[in-house]
């Protein structure tokens, strides 16, 4: 399946922890940033948000609505996949800043699950338990890792 995605820039540091790309839509050009922050040995959190160009800081809890949600999420998913495959053995934790955003991630994971499963394993957390991601199930957070990694 070919997904529409933005081109993105990756930082030159060896760990490849920072990524930037531009969202282009009715609200103009908005710089998006993806950051992988290590929260525990081998466990990274996926963070992404809009960059405030004037302060060079990420805007907290903003809903952009630039008409390209799916393209933005596809781009973030591609970046996440590349990051995981470049760092074998790590796991990536993913959670939205709100239940609505987590649900949006869930919908998109469901939509492209067959493609994702080709090289990644996704688990979802519900009722404080982890399970292999299933469609039509509401989760609170997700974990992504290379297929067959750690098991």
């Amino acid at each position, binding site marked *: 399946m*070919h*997904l*529409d*995605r*933005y*081109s*993105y*820039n*990756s*930082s*030159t*540091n060896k*760990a490849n*922890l*920072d*990524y*930037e790309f531009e969202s282009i839509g009715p609200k103009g050009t908005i710089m998006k*940033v993806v*950051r992988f*922050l*290590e*929260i*525990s*040995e*081998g*466990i*990274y*959190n996926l*963070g992404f*948000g809009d*960059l405030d160009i004037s302060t*060079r*800081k*990420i*805007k*907290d809890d903003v809903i952009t609505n630039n008409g390209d949600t799916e393209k933005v999420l596809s*781009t973030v998913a*591609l970046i996440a996949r*590349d990051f995981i495959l470049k*760092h*074998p*053995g*790590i*796991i990536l*934790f993913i*959670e939205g*800043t709100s239940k609505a955003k987590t649900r949006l991630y869930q919908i998109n994971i469901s939509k492209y699950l067959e493609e994702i499963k080709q090289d990644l394993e996704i*688990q979802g*957390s519900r009722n*404080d*338990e*982890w399970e292999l991601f299933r469609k039509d199930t509401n989760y*609170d*957070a997700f*974990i992504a*890792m290379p297929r067959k990694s*750690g*098991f």
Partner: protein
Amino acid sequence: MSVAKKSSKSAARKTTRTKTITKAKIVVSDAVGNYEHDPYFVKKAASAKAFLERVGLPKGFVPKAS
């Protein structure tokens, strides 16, 4: 030899739908910022850590050192 001509009506009814898919280009650039200490990302990481401390990891999984 006769050449069959399509009626102008059927030709007009035919529509072609296209969708342009942009192939992502990846550029490694030293212009990309370092967001390690950005307050938003730090806050999100703290929330993620708290979640995992409460819920734990999937059974049997031990991440390798990065």
